[in-house]
C-alpha cells in the first residue's frame, strides 16, 4: 500500500490543514493521490498544500466551511470538473468545546453538532451524488473513542462523535449495493494540536493519557493514517458501515 496504491486517485480531506487531517492527506499524497485539502482556515490550508507540493506531492487547497450545506455541492462540482472524479472523501473537520454540561452555551452545542454531524452528513450527501452516479467511491468519517466512552466536560463532542458512528452505519447500509462504501475510524488520543491544547488548558495530562491507554502511549498520526489508507483501499472492499478503533486498547479497557 505504501508505494503508489492511490496513484491517480482524487482524495478530499476536510479539515486537512492540520493535525490528523493533514497527516492523512500527506499519506494519501505519498501513495500517489491528488489530494484536496478542504479547509475553513485559509492560512492553514494554503500552507499545508504548499508544504506537500514542496515535497513533490500533488496537493491543492480549496476553501470549505462544512457548516454551510451549500458549499459541499459547489466544491464537488468544481473538483469533478477539474479532476474528472472524486474517489475518496474524508470527513475530518471537527471542533471541540470543553466545559460543564450544565453551563454549555447553545452556541457551542449547536456549533459542535453543526460542524461534525450536519457537516459530515451534507458533505457525504454532496459527494455521494457524484459517487453513486459513478457507482464507485469511499467516504471515511472520523469519529473518536469518545463515540463509545464519555468524558466529563465534553458532552457535545461525545454526542456528535456517537452520531457520526450511526451516520456511518446508516449511509453505509443505504449505499452498500451501489458501489459506495462508508466507513469510519475512531482514533484514541493522538499527539495533535488539539490534544496539546487540551493538555495546555489543564483538562488532561500526558501521563494521565498514557496510564489510561493499555499500550501506555499516545497514538501517532501516521498510525491513524495507515488505518485510513487500508479502509480506503480495495483490500477493505467488503467493509462498510463499520467504524475501526485505532486507540491502543482505550475503549476495550474497562477496569480502574
Amino acid at each position, binding site marked *: *500500500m505504501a508505494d503508489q496504491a492511490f496513484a491517480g486517485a482524487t482524495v478530499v480531506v476536510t479539515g486537512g490543514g492540520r493535525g490528523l487531517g493533514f497527516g492523512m492527506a500527506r499519506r494519501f499524497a505519498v501513495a500517489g493521490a491528488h489530494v484536496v485539502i478542504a479547509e475553513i482556515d485559509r492560512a492553514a490550508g494554503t500552507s499545508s498544500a504548499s508544504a506537500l507540493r514542496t515535497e513533490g506531492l500533488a496537493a491543492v487547497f480549496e476553501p470549505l466551511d462544512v457548516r454551510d450545506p451549500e458549499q459541499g455541492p459547489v466544491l464537488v462540482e468544481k473538483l469533478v470538473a477539474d479532476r474528472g472524479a472524486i474517489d475518496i472523501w474524508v470527513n475530518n473537520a471537527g471542533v471541540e468545546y470543553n466545559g460543564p454540561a450544565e453551563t454549555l452555551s447553545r452556541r457551542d452545542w449547536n456549533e459542535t453538532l453543526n460542524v461534525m454531524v450536519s457537516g459530515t452528513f451534507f458533505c457525504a450527501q454532496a459527494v455521494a451524488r457524484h459517487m453513486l452516479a459513478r457507482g464507485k467511491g469511499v467516504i471515511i468519517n472520523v469519529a473518536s473513542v469518545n463515540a463509545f466512552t464519555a468524558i466529563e466536560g465534553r458532552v457535545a463532542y461525545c454526542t456528535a462523535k456517537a452520531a457520526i458512528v450511526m451516520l456511518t*452505519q*446508516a449511509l*453505509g*447500509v*443505504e449505499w*452498500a*449495493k451501489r458501489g459506495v462504501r462508508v466507513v469510519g475510524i475512531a482514533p*484514541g488520543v493522538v499527539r495533535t494540536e488539539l490534544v496539546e491544547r487540551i493538555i495546555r488548558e489543564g483538562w488532561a495530562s500526558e501521563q494521565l493519557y498514557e496510564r489510561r*491507554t*493499555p*499500550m*501506555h502511549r499516545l*497514538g*501517532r498520526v501516521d*498510525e*491513524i493514517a*495507515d*488505518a485510513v489508507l*487500508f479502509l480506503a483501499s480495495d*483490500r*477493505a*472492499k*467488503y*467493509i*462498510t*458501515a*463499520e467504524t*475501526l*478503533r*485505532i*486507540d*491502543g*486498547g482505550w*475503549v*476495550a*479497557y*474497562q*477496569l480502574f
Partner: protein
Amino acid sequence: MTLADRVAVVTGAGRGIGFGIAQAFCREGAQVIIGELDVDRGRDAEKRLTAQGHRARALVLDVTQAESCAALTDRVTADHGRIDVLVNNAGVFTLHKSEEMPEADWRRQIDVMLTGVFLMTQAVARGMIARGQGSIVNIASIGGMGGWPMRAAYNSAKAGVIALTEVLATEWAHYNIRVNAVSPGVVRTEMMNVAIREGLASAEQYARRTPMGRVAEVDEIADAVAFLASDRASYVTGVNLRVDGGWVPWGNLHARGFPEEVARG
C-alpha cells in the same frame, strides 16, 4: 510485503477462511504454519501453497488439548525461532434448536472455538511475552454480536471470543502484544453450506440479507486479517473489526422472522 519473514501460525488453515488467510500471509512474505486437526487436509493445504512457491508447513494441532498447543508452539519455535503472528481460526459449526441441542454438541463448539482459542493463545503468548512482541488475530463472527436462532453454542463461543480479545488486548498491551478480532459476515465457504444443505437458508437469502447484496469471498476476510496482523495496525488493539458488507448495522425492516410460520401469524 507487509509480513515479510514473519512466522505466522494459522489454526484450522486446511480450508475455508483459514486457508485464505494462510495464502494471503504467504503472499505478504510470511512463513506460514498451518495448524490442522485433519492431517491429510493440512498436508494438502501445505502442498497447494508450496506449489505456488510459498513457505508453508502443516503441523497437526488439536486446539482443545493444551499439550497439542504446546507441542506445536515448541516445534515452530525450535525450527523457526519464534512465532510473530497467531491467527485463531479453527472452528466447528452445527445447527440445532436450542431445546434439542445435544450436550456434546454444545461442549464441542465451546471447546474448539472458545477454550481452544484461549489454550492456543496461552501457549503461543508465553514466547511473545518473553520477546516483547506479537500480534494475535481471533476469527470471531457477526454471529457473536447478535441473535441467530439455532446457533446457541456457535454464537456464544464467538461472543466469548470477542470478550476474550478485549481482555487479552488490555492485559498484554504493555508487553507490546496486540490482540484483535475480525468478525466476518457470511462467507462463501463450506460452513455457509451447512445451513443451506439443511434447508434452513439459501445462498440467495444470505445475499439479500446483506446490504452489499452478496456474501463475502474468503480473500476479503483474509485481507482484513493481514492488515491487523501487520505493523500497519500498530496502534490497533482490542478491536473487533466487522467485515460483513453492512450486515450487523442493517435494521432489515422486512425480515421474514423466525420461525416463518409463527412470525406470519
